[in-house]
């Protein structure tokens, strides 16, 4: 380990805000990339299930 304590790590000889800021933004961007398709998959599943349900209830109606 390069740093002796947590304070040193966050400070990084004055460069901490830059370094940790860059990592933070990176994980925000990657997180957004991960999140959007997951949300869309959930929504699609929901929509298709509803469509299935509507189709089935329509069929019952016609009987």
């Amino acid at each position, binding site marked *: 380990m390069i740093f002796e304590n947590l304070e040193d790590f966050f400070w990084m000889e004055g*460069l901490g805000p830059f*370094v940790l800021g860059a990592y933070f933004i*990176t994980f925000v961007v990657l997180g957004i990339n991960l999140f*959007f398709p997951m949300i869309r998959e959930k929504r*699609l599943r929901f929509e298709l299930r509803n469509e299935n349900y509507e189709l089935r209830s329509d069929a019952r109606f016609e009987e």
Partner: protein
Amino acid sequence: MLGWFHRLGSPKTFFGMSQSWPKTFGLLSLVLLALGTVWGLLFAPPDYQQGHSVRIMYVHVPAAAVAQSCYLIMAISSAVFLIWNIKLADWAAKSMAPIGASLAFLVLITGAIWGKPTWGTWWVWDARLTSTLVLLLLYLGIIALRNALEEKGNDGRPCAVLALVGLVNLPIIKYSVDWWFTLHQPASFTLTEKPKMPPEMWIPLLLMAAGYYLFVFSVWTSRIRNEIISRERKTAWAKAWAGSQ
């Protein structure tokens, strides 16, 4: 060979085949990214000149490599779509654009954050930085064009052509630091020479790069699968998928 190619091009086959890809590659990528981050932040040595700001390299350099690779993959998908008329290739190209755009944005932001403490400026209009900005603008243009086309119910043919035209930017990004005077330094990794940094620096960099590539593969397949389901929602297998969980 061609039979395999056409089978892969069938949305249904691809959808069945790729079921586990987003999760498997996603988890693997998160492990690699976590390892690389811990290594890069806590164990890799500082640079003799830049000090700790060199740690930004571990997120900046792989993002740059991946942002350009994404463009190449998008252009290849576009060419496959134009030549073989495989719809799935069009959807694959469409799915790659937002991922590539976000990574190009990430390169520019992390580069600016690295530039401030090392060069003394957030931004300079040198050939490397400008051509990378052009990469982001190309992605955004392709996304905007796609939205306009889909509103009118058209497929991505003009997008594919634009993606292919923009391909010319990739060698410009790569060789900008050799062809012109730039503030950005030349490449530290080349095929012919050994890396211009010690293993305790390039090993975490390699881990991060592998993590980024797997991450992109995971979210790309996830987006393609969503695209397939959204367009094939009337089919029995899509309905079966929706009811399966």
